[in-house]
């Protein structure tokens, strides 16, 4: 049942560019990007239970690494891959430094990472263009072809993230994350090397986001620090995961899709008050459904038959 559903979904998404117009494809690309962000945050925030606000930092790193490499003539695919790698290394190093903090302190340390990086990029204008932003070489292919290229690229990264999430969830690693999330001291006593596990979770939450950031940069052709180190990039995945269900495999994706749908509808119809409507939704969500709006249905759906 579960496998059929996933298969159908993948086929439908693969076929999407042949049916939808450019705007739909663009929206679908955003959806894939959101899924990557939400799934990634879920590693550290949902599974390991550390309230990370560093997503925008990884995204920005990815975007700038990808942009700089491409500006220096590196093939775009290689640049994207390298961007993910650099984000991963950065997360591993920073994770070592800040993962001993707990609760609010960790949240803020991760948030401040975003601020520091934005300022660093802003002031190193020799490499990054600083406040002038950066242009990424445009691919010499047709509108439709480039739309499809970025859609499929984002799709592949999303699938990769999902596959990783699914694997982690069912492996020793994910088990360890869940132990840490529920009781770190007890997990330690059971032999979980929590420092190592947390660092892995943090790194996992960075690598795909870094790639997505790089693809995004190529896609929009132009990036500037406030846009890729945007605090909303940090908050949105959290809301998506809250919406879909923390610490689950598919929850983040469902949350991402739901969030995008809401965002689009609200954005289109409430020109001047869309952020208020979004705020209201968040408030309602936290007050009435702290476990995730869509948490229960699909979980039952997937789990029900197994036992």
């Amino acid at each position, binding site marked *: 049942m579960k496998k059929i559903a996933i298969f159908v979904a993948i086929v439908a998404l693969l076929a999407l560019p042949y049916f939808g*117009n*450019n*705007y739909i494809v*663009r929206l679908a690309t*955003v959806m894939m990007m959101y899924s990557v962000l939400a799934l990634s945050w879920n590693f550290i925030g949902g599974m390991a239970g550390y309230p990370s606000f560093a997503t925008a930092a990884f995204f920005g790193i990815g975007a700038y690494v990808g942009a700089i490499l491409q500006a220096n003539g590196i093939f775009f695919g290689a640049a994207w891959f390298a961007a993910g790698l650099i984000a991963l290394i950065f997360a591993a190093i920073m994770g070592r430094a800040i993962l001993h903090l707990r609760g609010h302190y960790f949240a803020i340390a991760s948030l401040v990472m975003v601020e520091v990086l934005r*300022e660093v990029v*802003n*002031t190193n*204008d020799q490499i990054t263009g*600083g*406040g*002038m*932003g950066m*242009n990424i070489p*445009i691919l010499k292919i047709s*509108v439709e072809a480039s739309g499809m290229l970025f859609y499929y690229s984002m799709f592949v990264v999303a699938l990769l993230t999902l596959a990783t999430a699914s694997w982690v969830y069912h492996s020793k690693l994910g088990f360890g994350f869940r132990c840490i999330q529920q009781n770190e001291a007890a997990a330690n006593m059971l032999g979980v090397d929590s420092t190592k596990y947390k660092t892995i979770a943090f790194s996992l939450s960075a690598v795909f986001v870094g790639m997505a950031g790089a693809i*995004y940069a190529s896609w*929009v*052709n*132009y*990036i*500037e620090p*406030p*846009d*890729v180190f*945007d605090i*909303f990039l940090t908050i949105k995945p959290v809301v998506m995961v809250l919406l879909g269900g923390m610490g689950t495999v598919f929850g983040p994706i469902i949350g991402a899709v739901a969030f995008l749908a809401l965002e689009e*509808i*609200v*954005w*289109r*119809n*409430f*020109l*001047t008050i*869309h*952020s208020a*409507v979004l705020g209201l*939704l968040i408030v*309602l*969500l936290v007050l*009435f*459904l702290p476990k995730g*709006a869509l948490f*229960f249905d699909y979980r039952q759906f997937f789990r029900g038959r197994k036992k």
Partner: protein
Amino acid sequence: MKKRALFTLAVSTLFVGLQAVGGSSSVQAAEKTIKFGAPLPLTGALAPEGIKIQRGLNLWMDTANAKGGIKVGNERYKIKIIYQDYQSNTPRAVQTAEKLITDDKVNFLFSPFGSGATKAASGVSEKYGIPTIASTASSEAVYNQGYKYLFGTFTPNITLTQPLTDMVIAKRPETKTVAILARNDFFPLAIANVMKKSAAKRNLKMVFFEKYAIGTMDHSSALVQMKAAKPDWIFATGYLNDLILIRNQMSELGVKVPVLTMVAGPAYKEFIDGTGKLAENITSAAWWHPAVRYNGKGVMGKTENFNKLFKAKYNLVPDYAEASATAAGIIFQLAIETAGTLDHKKVRDALATMDTETFFGPIKFGANGQISSLKPPVFQIRGGKPLVVYPDVIKQIDLKFGIK
């Protein structure tokens, strides 16, 4: 369970409401309309600018529609501008532009705010071949991308700083040194760099050149250093809030200077309101000023008429951003009426060959699409009003020195 039900109810009510709102607006298409897309930063850091552009565009739309709309061949079309907020986020501006083209199927597009976002979004309109007018982009880099469908109403930045420099030196030959404080952001930095060039050309010595971060809440360190350098001329760039703060702190710290130039802001009423007496004698340059006098074609007619209509609608004196937005609309209208069709290619050609005059000034685009005919005025704030000091044709008052 109860909570979930409640939430579902809330969300579904919201959805129904949304659909209702979304649906109703697209129903009445009985009369013929031309759709213009305008991605604007209506929220976020650039919201004040976005709202200005919206004002300018709305004035054009309402005035033109009141006169029957745009005449295409023998038919008259009503103007409909579809606004989309891109939340001051440049990539979102790109996305929004594409949405307007493919989803809302607009006929023509206005650019987002500023050079950065315009440059980023221009790729989209070029891709789809949609004629696009940028009302607030001045950097040549925007127009030198080889795009065919992008036109802009602002001359290059150097046209602002060069006349200013020439004039200051002509009127006050003892001016030898200049200090620049620039916001580390696309346009402010660009204009600061151009100023540096203009100053170098006139052999002014640069005694201070610093950038400040976006969101800086205190300029006292920079100002104290600047004061110690004793410049003859201080040139500060940034947006309204930065410049108001800088001006106030200059006064607090007793920074006195013969010439103080600020870009971009002093032309705005909010700047003069926000600095009061301290605004006195600040010089600035902009692409337009309400004191200019052009015998314009199109629905606005003369500059005086535009000023009057604007005042009547908003109870405000228009500034260059608002005027440029209105002008962008009129330029579109003139081009469409000349072309006599809505065909993108033909309207584009009409724009490229346009040679006319509007309340905004003479309109003629260079080969790269950037306007080449405009002579931006230099002005100085005197008695709480920005008065033109250059060019001589429309000069209202003589340049005065000394800032306290």
